[in-house]
């Protein structure tokens, strides 16, 4: 019987596994969630101190939405976790980063996170037909997210519909300034003490700027570690539930698949895990591209829960903005799925693009390397260069 906190899958299946092991893992997860809230609060507080009210000037380079989009894409591609990046963004908005700068970053995070399932698809490279199916299954997510940005970023720049909608909802939830939501008043007294301890005791002797920077770095590191560990733990604990959800979705329509993708991502707290899991299933021909497509989109929606959770950590006058950016993330993904998947012509674009790319790539595997390098690094760098040169 294992007493380790990270029980293996085989041991979980064993009838002799102690329920104490399950309880200790769930307690660990609750502790990690608490640490996530503290980390987000640290980032918000630290950024506010270090920026000294100059947050907009500090991020002036990202006032160009293309640059902000690229920052979100590359940061997420490097960290391979949109949950981490969006939680950090929530913290930064709480610290004063304008929401309008954060919105393209959140859109970029959607694109950057798809690098993980593309890497997983490379595992099928030895068998041409498997690789073709797996690569198409991975890149359909990329093409959907890029199409979503192409459609909604210009609309957002022109009309600010996501910002306005999210602000409207946030106002009704949070009210005026401060987190006056009845159910969440308990969070401030839980989260504030460690943040104040670090700020006023541990870092007391340092200048404000340094204190703020250290708090931000600590917060970012903590978020990264927390989300990594939560993901690992939940993968082990929730695999049974994940199987139930997937079994229930077999043979049903796309709406059921979207719901399953959403639920599974909420359970494992990682869209990368959900979308990567179906790559081998698609590669082996068990699920077709059209079957996994809506499931992938569900993961886009499910991943928004982490940013919403992170937003609950923020109190004070910026709480409403933190909730606003988390709601923007959610609305962007939800509307994207409804519009793009709902309109037949738009729905077919990612399918066509993924199939065409896979057809070409299977003949010359190096195109896969060129594709990954281009989409996640070279093109973003070029976009930044062009926008800086043109003075956009």
């Amino acid at each position, binding site marked *: 019987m294992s007493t380790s906190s990270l029980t293996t899958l085989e041991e979980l299946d064993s009838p002799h596994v102690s329920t104490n092991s399950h309880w200790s893992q769930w307690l660990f997860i609750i502790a990690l969630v608490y640490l996530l809230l503290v980390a987000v609060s640290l980032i918000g507080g630290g950024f506010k101190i270090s920026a000294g009210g100059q947050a907009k000037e500090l991020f002036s380079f990202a006032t160009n939405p293309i640059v902000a989009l690229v920052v979100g894409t590359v940061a997420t591609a490097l960290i391979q976790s949109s949950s981490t990046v969006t939680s950090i963004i929530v913290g930064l908005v709480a610290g004063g980063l304008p929401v309008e700068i954060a919105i393209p970053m959140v859109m970029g995070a959607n694109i950057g996170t798809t690098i993980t399932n593309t*890497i997983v698809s*490379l595992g099928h490279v030895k068998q041409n037909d498997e690789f073709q199916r797996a690569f198409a299954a991975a890149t359909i997510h990329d093409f959907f997210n890029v199409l979503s940005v192409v459609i909604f970023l210009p609309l957002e720049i022109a009309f600010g519909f996501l910002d306005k909608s999210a602000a409207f909802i946030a106002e009704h939830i949070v009210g005026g300034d401060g987190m006056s939501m009845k159910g969440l008043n308990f969070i401030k007294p839980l989260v504030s003490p460690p943040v104040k301890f670090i700020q006023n005791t541990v870092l007391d002797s340092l200048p404000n700027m340094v204190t703020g920077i250290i708090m931000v770095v600590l917060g970012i590191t903590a978020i990264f570690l927390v989300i990594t560990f939560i993901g690992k733990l939940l993968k082990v604990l929730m*695999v049974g539930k994940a199987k139930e959800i*997937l*079994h229930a979705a077999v043979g049903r329509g796309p709406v059921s698949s979207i719901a399953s993708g959403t639920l599974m991502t909420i359970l494992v707290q990682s869209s990368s895990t959900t979308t990567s899991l179906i*790559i*081998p*299933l698609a590669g082996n021909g068990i699920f077709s591209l059209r079957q996994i497509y809506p499931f992938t989109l569900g993961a886009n929606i499910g991943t928004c829960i982490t940013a919403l959770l992170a937003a609950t950590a923020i109190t004070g006058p910026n709480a409403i903005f933190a909730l606003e950016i988390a709601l923007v993330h959610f609305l962007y993904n939800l509307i994207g799925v409804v519009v793009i998947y709902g309109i037949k012509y738009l729905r077919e674009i990612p399918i066509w693009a993924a199939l065409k790319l896979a057809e070409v790539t299977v003949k010359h595997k190096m195109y896969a*390397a060129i594709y990954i390098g281009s989409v996640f690094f070279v093109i973003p760098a070029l976009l930044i260069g062009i926008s800086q040169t043109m003075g956009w």
Partner: protein
Amino acid sequence: MNIQQSRKNELEQKINELEESLSALKLQLKHQEEKEQHKAIDNLDFYLDQVDNKYENFRIFRSIIAKEFREIFNKPLRNDDSVDRN
């Protein structure tokens, strides 16, 4: 006329029977596919392990890319092809 009508009716009946058989076969195929999908889901742990070992995929991929590059740069030019034209 009766013979023609009778022939038409016969053909229509055969077409209907074929369409019913095709529908039944499609349904059987759908059930078979769903059975395979349920079986694969039961082995989800195996696919989770594949996801966890994704960086191993890079190593395999890298060797294949390296081989493709070598094939491109070692490929002889058309003029140098030593094709025996006899």
